[in-house]
């Protein structure tokens, strides 16, 4: 289930891409979105360690020791790619030049707050570039499994330390597509294999359900 669920999420997030987008994908599940960029669509991937125009991961033997992505993986670059330093990279990110970032999360709440970088006492990897991406990207999509060990991740109010306040625009899980609006969280789509009951049972936050919901 785990693998297919993640693939399903990545595939659905990819439907949000638009021609000409510059996108930064977080590590893990979000990076899988790159596998589903629609044919013929021009999407440029930014990696915050200093690449615009990142290509696919390198197979064994193809690595260039000087070229990695922000997840410490050896990658190819596309024709017309560029390299730059960290200050320039974050000027792109904070400066509103990145159309979309797709990130994972531990919790997202009704106000579009996101907690993704720390579980005090157990997981303290550091925020890396996540806070800058959340602060500066034009649009933020959270791509994550709907629950963690059965516990809802879409909550009324984040209990974990925030990575950003009110920055999430859309949440895509294996169960649902949920938009963050000024009125609250709006259930936009039910993913294949799920149902309104299933979603409500696994969601702590209140969901606004409107007529004409896509199933």
């Amino acid at each position, binding site marked *: 289930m785990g693998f297919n669920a993640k693939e399903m999420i990545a595939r659905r997030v990819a439907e949000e891409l638009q021609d000409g987008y510059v996108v930064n994908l977080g590590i893990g599940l979000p990076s899988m979105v790159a596998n589903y960029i629609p044919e013929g669509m021009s999407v440029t991937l930014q990696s915050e360690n*200093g690449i615009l125009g990142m290509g696919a991961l390198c197979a064994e033997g193809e690595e260039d020791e000087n070229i990695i992505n922000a997840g410490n993986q050896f990658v190819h670059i596309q024709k017309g790619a560029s390299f*730059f*330093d960290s200050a320039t990279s*974050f000027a792109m990110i904070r400066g509103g030049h990145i159309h979309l970032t797709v990130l994972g999360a531990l919790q997202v709440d009704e106000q579009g707050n996101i907690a993704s970088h720390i579980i005090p006492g157990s997981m*303290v990897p550091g925020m890396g570039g996540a806070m800058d991406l959340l602060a500066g990207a034009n649009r933020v999509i959270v791509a994550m499994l709907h629950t963690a060990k059965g516990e809802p991740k879409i909550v009324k109010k984040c209990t974990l330390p925030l990575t*950003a*306040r009110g920055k999430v625009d859309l949440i895509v899980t294996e169960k649902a597509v949920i938009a963050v609006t000024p009125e609250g969280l709006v259930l936009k789509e039910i993913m294949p294999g799920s149902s309104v009951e299933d979603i409500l049972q696994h969601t702590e936050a209140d969901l606004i359900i409107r007529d004409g919901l896509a199933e």
Partner: protein
Amino acid sequence: MNKVIGINEAVKMIKSGCTIMISGFMAVKSPEALIDLMIKNNIKNLTVIANDSAVPGKGIGKLITHRCVKKLIASHIGLNPETGRQMNAGELEVELIPQGTLAERIRCGGAGLGGFLTPTGIGTSVEEGKQKLTVNGAEYLLEFPLRADVAIIKGSVVDTLGNVFYKGTTQNFSLVMAMAADLVIVEAEEIVQPGELKAEYVMTPGIFVDYIVGAEM
């Protein structure tokens, strides 16, 4: 003005207890030869400023494993479990800073600026103890410059005047770090004569570099 010196001579200038910036992103092109000799020379109690603590056995990861670091200022430590272990055991102080803020603080340190305003970290614990300012209706945090006693940087091609070219993604924090330390040592993969590295390809101008060492010594 030949800046090339022996690596032993260079590492003698790096003292225990100093604050040191180290280039590299997840240990891709950290100055490994300098780091190895620092460990061999038993240089301890360092305050290290870097993007991350690499992975065990590579780059800054080696300094962590050998207990050379008293304090680490970085944006990410998730790929080196030993860093987390030392932090949780109270053996290593870790200050985590958003990556863009870290880069810009270092840039400010080298560029003669007194600080900058960033939206990054608003509404999070990063705010704590910081002044918030509203400009044109938007909230920003006031962040201050970072400087170091020493910066050690890896360069792909370096001429003897200290002009540096970086391949691929290896420039990462090097450009800002080279500006923000009192003593800057570049570990070169290849050392060339002035003129061999065309001016257009210089990414760190030699003015920022004090000494150059070869990586293979």
